[in-house]
């Protein structure tokens, strides 16, 4: 089983996690920028965090055989703090960098006017920088927040296939499926979604545009939930190719729209003898310009 965890906050995890993830088949991740638990109070604090995602965390992941990408954004929660909003002015520098494969996490937390302003602005930045978008949906008033999210995406003019709407559940998946956006599910020990409910959703809605992540962070969470969902799929009668589609090919297809994935040989031990090169063909400008297959980005 080869796994691309499309949403995980490795900054909050240990090297034991990296080792266990690698052993479970994780070969690539995307770490979206988010809230750190402790509120930030300045733009400089964001910049150091972004630098860490692009620098130290990519290096650390590489030590364990895992390709690390990131998404960069002002998160919804801190979009409400005027001391943090100015970070929007430095985002263009970061959105131009190699290994930045999306704008995210953006979206709503408490559905405030400030959140909506930051969200709309960052949808524009995604269009300008030719990047897909990872959208967080709120934990409270989720259905209304998801509906408003889809309205703003439609108004932005971004093609829905460049938008991933995350943290969905049984009550929000249908409206996202109908919108044409990608559907993300965070598999958690207690909250959000569990692997068996996830399998039932895959049975009902199919595998197209379906994304499964662990969203593991500094709270109670499990970086192996992607692998456990893959196992639950197999136990339910899905084939290995189905698991490979959900856990590897779908996230590669979504983030590959950036042209900036750093994977080339990372999935070489894939399921079913699938040719990983075929999966990435044309997705990565970066890959095309490398004289060798071993260059680190």
């Amino acid at each position, binding site marked *: 089983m080869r796994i691309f965890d499309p949403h995980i906050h490795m900054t909050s995890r240990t090297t034991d996690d990296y080792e266990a993830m690698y052993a479970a088949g994780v070969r690539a991740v995307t770490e979206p920028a988010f809230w750190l638990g402790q509120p930030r109070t300045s733009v400089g604090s964001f*910049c150091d965090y972004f*630098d860490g995602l*692009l*620098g*130290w965390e990519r*290096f650390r992941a590489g*030590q364990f055989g895992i390709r690390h990408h990131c998404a960069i954004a002002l998160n919804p929660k801190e979009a409400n703090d005027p001391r943090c909003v100015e970070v929007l002015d*430095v985002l*263009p*520098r*970061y*959105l*131009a*960098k*190699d*290994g930045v494969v999306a704008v995210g996490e953006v979206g709503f937390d408490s559905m405030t006017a400030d959140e909506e302003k930051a969200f709309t602005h960052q949808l524009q930045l995604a269009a300008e*920088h030719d990047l897909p978008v990872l959208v967080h949906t709120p934990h409270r008033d989720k259905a209304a927040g998801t509906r408003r999210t889809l309205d703003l995406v439609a108004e932005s003019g971004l093609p829905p296939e460049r938008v991933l709407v995350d943290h969905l559940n049984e009550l929000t998946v249908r409206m996202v499926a109908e919108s044409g956006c990608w559907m993300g599910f965070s598999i958690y020990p207690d909250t959000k979604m569990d692997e068996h409910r996830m399998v039932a959703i895959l049975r009902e809605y199919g595998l197209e545009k379906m994304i499964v992540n662990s969203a593991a962070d500094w709270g109670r969470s499990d970086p192996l939930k992607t692998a456990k969902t893959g196992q639950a799929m197999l136990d339910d009668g899905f084939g290995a190719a189905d698991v490979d589609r959900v856990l590897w090919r779908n996230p590669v297809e979504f983030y590959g729209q950036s*042209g*900036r994935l750093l994977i080339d040989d990372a999935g070489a031990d894939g399921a079913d003898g699938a040719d990983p090169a075929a999966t990435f063909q044309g997705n990565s*400008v*970066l890959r095309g*310009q*490398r*004289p*060798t297959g071993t*260059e680190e*980005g």
Partner: protein
Amino acid sequence: MSTREARSAPDLDATASRRLDELVQELADDPRRISTIFPAVARRVARGPADPDDPDGVKRPRLEDQARTALLAALASMWADDPERFTHELAQLYRYGDADEKRAVLRALSALDTGAGMSAVSLPLVEDALRTNDVRLVAAAMGPYGARHLDPDSWRQGVLKCLFVGVPLDAVAELGARADTELARMVADYCRERAAAGRSMPADAWRVLDRFGELGRDLRTAGTAPGVSGTEAATTGRET
């Protein structure tokens, strides 16, 4: 490609040169766009070593470093009537750069070395790079610009750091001209410390010690074999 670009980026092939020309044109249309063009250079122009035997670009700048140097040289001439604006942006590119971009700024400094105003901005960048344990940045910091401008104490510490983190001394510009007895003493002490811990000394240490025979004599007579350098700090980044 202009003569100046060709001088900055001698190893680009025709396709890469054409792409670089396009970026220079985009920059000419609006020089402020350097903040987003500069990070995109590797994927839009070229990426890789200029010399296959030098994959990290320690001795000869990598293709993307050459292209970024050409862009910075072009920007400097576009803003020739406002050098402070240029040096401010140069510092910003370093501040917001990832390791590849920072390395490119450091590599470019020698070509942009135009006077005191420049040094006030660029020497702190070199000093910042020498505070890291990133071998790519340390190597670039010890290039021609560092050799020309670092004070003796900082320069010697830089050489010692190269031995410590595993940067080959080939990366150190003007090593023969600037090495002195104080550097040799520091290198000899470092090697004694490693010998006391039962660890091998970096082979490159002899490139300094051989020039100051007295200082390293006990290391030879003690039979301390030159060997693999202590690169653990570089690969784990744990030591600070």
